[in-house]
C-alpha cells in the first residue's frame, strides 16, 4: 500500500535508501559550493585559471533520474558508463562520499584515478562503473562495445550510458547508436538534459532526441527527469527490453536548472526560487515519500543531518589524507623511459 502510494512497487526501505542517496549527492554538492567549488579547498590555486576544465559534479537536478536508473539496474552485474553529471548515479552504484572527496581533494587514495583525473571522473572496476574521459561522446560507442561483449558471451548484463544533451551531437553517438541498434544490444542511453535559462542554442539542433533515436530503429521515450517515479518506470521498461533481446532504448530526461542566480547575474526573486523548489527532484521525492507515509519530518531531519555529517567527515578525512607523490606519476605507465626516473 505504502509502496503503491509512492508510485512504484519498491519496498519502503529501498525507496528510503534511494532518497538518502539523492540527499547525499546534494549534500556533497552543497558542501562543495561552500568550499568555493572545491578550488579554495586545495593547495593555493587561485585566479581565473584554477577552474580550467573543472566542470565537475553537476548532478544537481538529475538526482531523481540517476538513482532511478541505479534502482533499475542489477548492481554487480550491470554496467554503468557515466558522464561528468553522474554523482548521484555513482553513489547509488557503490561509490562512497569519502571516495568522492578523495577525488575532489586530489588525494593519493582517490580510488577512481589516484587523483590523476580532474574531480568528477569516477570509476571503479569492482562496481562496474567505467572510468570516463572528458571527451564527450567517446564513451557512448564504448558502451555499445561493452554491451556487445555481454551479448557475445551470453551473459545477462545491461549497460547504461549517460550523456549530457550536447554529447549526442558528436559523431560517436551516431556510431554507437547505429551499432547498438544493428545488434539489438542490451544498452540504455540516458540523455541528461539540463535546459538552461537561455534555452538551447538553436544553431545546434533540429528535432528531438526521441525522433533521432527512432531514426535508428531504437525504442525511445522522453520522461520528466526530475520525477523519480516517471524515471524509474521508464528505466524499468528499458532494462526489461534489454534483457529480453528487445535492443537498446534511448531515454531523454530533461530537467530544470536549479540555480539561485538570474541569467544576467543577481539573485532570483523569492517567488521564482519557490517555483524552482517545486522542480527540485530531491524536494519532489521528499514530498512524495512524506505523502506516502514512507518518511516523516523527523525521520527526514535525521536523514538530512546524517548525510551532512557523513559529508563533513568525508571532507575532513579527505583533506587530511596525503597527496600523491610526484614520481608516482610514473606508476602504471606501460614502460619507463630510462631518463624519466
Amino acid at each position, binding site marked *: 500500500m505504502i509502496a503503491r502510494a509512492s508510485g512504484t512497487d519498491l519496498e519502503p526501505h529501498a525507496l528510503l535508501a534511494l532518497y538518502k542517496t539523492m540527499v547525499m549527492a546534494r549534500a556533497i554538492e552543497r558542501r562543495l559550493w561552500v568550499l568555493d567549488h572545491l578550488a579554495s579547498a586545495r593547495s593555493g590555486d587561485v585566479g581565473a*585559471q584554477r577552474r*580550467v576544465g573543472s566542470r565537475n559534479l553537476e548532478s544537481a537536478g538529475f538526482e531523481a533520474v540517476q538513482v532511478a536508473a541505479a534502482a533499475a539496474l542489477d548492481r554487480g552485474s550491470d554496467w554503468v558508463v557515466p558522464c561528468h553529471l553522474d554523482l548521484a548515479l555513482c553513489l547509488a552504484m557503490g561509490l562512497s562520499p569519502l571516495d568522492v572527496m578523495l577525488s575532489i581533494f*586530489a588525494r593519493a587514495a582517490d580510488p577512481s584515478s589516484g587523483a590523476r583525473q580532474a574531480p568528477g571522473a569516477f570509476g571503479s572496476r569492482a562496481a562496474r562503473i567505467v572510468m570516463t574521459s*572528458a571527451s564527450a*561522446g567517446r564513451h557512448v560507442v564504448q558502451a555499445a562495445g561493452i554491451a556487445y561483449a555481454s551479448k557475445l558471451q551470453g551473459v545477462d548484463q545491461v549497460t547504461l550510458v549517460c550523456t549530457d544533451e550536447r554529447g549526442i551531437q558528436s559523431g560517436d553517438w551516431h556510431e554507437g547508436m547505429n551499432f547498438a541498434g544493428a545488434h539489438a544490444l542490451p544498452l540504455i542511453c540516458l540523455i541528461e538534459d539540463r535546459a538552461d535559462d537561455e534555452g538551447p542554442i538553436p544553431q545546434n539542433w533540429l528535432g528531438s532526441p526521441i525522433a533521432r533515436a527512432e531514426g535508428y530503429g531504437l525504442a525511445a521515450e522522453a520522461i520528466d527527469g526530475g520525477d523519480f517515479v516517471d524515471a524509474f518506470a521508464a528505466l524499468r521498461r528499458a532494462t526489461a527490453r534489454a534483457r529480453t533481446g528487445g535492443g537498446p532504448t534511448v531515454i531523454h530526461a530533461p530537467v530544470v536548472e536549479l540555480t539561485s542566480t538570474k541569467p544576467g547575474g543577481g539573485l532570483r526573486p523569492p517567488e521564482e526560487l519557490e517555483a524552482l523548489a517545486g522542480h527540485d527532484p530531491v524536494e519532489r521525492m521528499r514530498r512524495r515519500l512524506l505523502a506516502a507515509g514512507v518518511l516523516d519530518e523527523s525521520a527526514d531531519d535525521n536523514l538530512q543531518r546524517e548525510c551532512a555529517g557523513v559529508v563533513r567527515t568525508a571532507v575532513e578525512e579527505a583533506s587530511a589524507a596525503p*597527496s600523491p607523490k610526484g614520481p608516482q606519476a610514473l606508476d602504471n605507465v606501460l614502460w619507463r623511459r630510462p631518463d624519466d626516473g
Partner: protein
Amino acid sequence: MCCGDDLTMAEMRMIEAVRAAITEEMERDERVLIMGEDVGRKGGVFGATDGLYARFGEARVLDTPLAESGIVGVAIGAALNGLIPIAEIQFADFIHPAFDQIVSEAARTRYRSNGDWSVPIVIRTPFGGGVHGGLYHSQSIEAFYAHVPGLKVVVPSMPGDAKGLLKSAIRDPDPVLFLEHKKVYRLVTEEVPEGEHLVPIGPAVVRREGTNVSCFAWGLMTHYCMQAAEQLANEGVSVEVVDLRCLAPLDRDTILSSVRKTGKAVIVHEDNITGGFGAEIAAIISEHAFDSLDGPVVRVAGPDIPAMPFNTPQEDFFMPNPVKIAEAVRKLASY
C-alpha cells in the same frame, strides 16, 4: 614585423591580443567568421570572443554543435565557398575527433587538387598544462600537427606576437593551426600596436642573446627558458633563448646559426619527450650543425606519461620549469 610609425600602442595580455586580432579582422573583411563551441552567446570559455556575438551577430559568431570533426569540416566547406573561417576548438585536448578533417582534408586540399583549391582556415585552440586541467585539459598537441605537410603551426608566447601572427594566419591562404597556451593568456602584458600589426609566419625570434648554450622553446616554455637564463646569468652562464613561434614552417636558419655560435643546444617542450617536436629540432641540429657541436643535443620535456595528471605534485613532476631547465643547461654548459 611591419608596423607603421603612427600606430598607437595598448598594454595587453595575450587573451586580449587574440580578441583584438579576431575583432579587427572581422571588421576588415566580412568574409571572416568565428565558429566553435560556446564562442557566441558565452563569448568563449576563456573570453577570447567576448562581445563579438553582440557585435557581429550569430551568423558570423557561430555557436556550433559539440562535434569537432563537424566544426573543422564545416569550416573547410565554408572556406571552399569563399569565407575565411576561424574555427575554435574549446581545448586542444578535444581536437582529435577532427584529426582526419585537419590532416587528410584541410592540409591536403591544395596539394591534391594540384593548386586548384585551397582552404584558408585558422584553427585556434588553447593548449598546455600547469593549470590544473588534468588529463583532458592540459595536453600539448603540436607534434602531431607540425609533422603534417600542408599545415602551418603557430605558437605565440607573447601578446604582440599573438596578435600579429593571428592576423597573418587569418590572411593566409592555407590552413593554420594556432595554439594559445592557457597559462600564457594572462601571464604577461606588453605594449601591442593597435590596428595593422602583422607578424610573418615562419621566422623565429631570439628573445635573449647568449654565447654558451642555445635554448629553443615555444609557448609557455619560452618564458621558463628566459627565467632560467636570468638565473644562469648570475652563475656566469650565457644562454641564448630562441622563441620558435612557428613550428611549421620551421626557421631552420635561426636554429642553426644559434647553435653554430654557441655549440650547444637545449630544446625545451611540455609535450612528452618521445616523438615530441623537440626530436625534429635535435635531428636537424645533429645533421646540419654537427661540426659545430661541442656537446650532446639535450631535450628537457615532459616525461613519457599518457597525459598530465591533475594533482599538483604529479603535475609539477610532469611540467618542465625554470629549475629543471637551468639544471640541464648548467650541466651541458660544463660539458
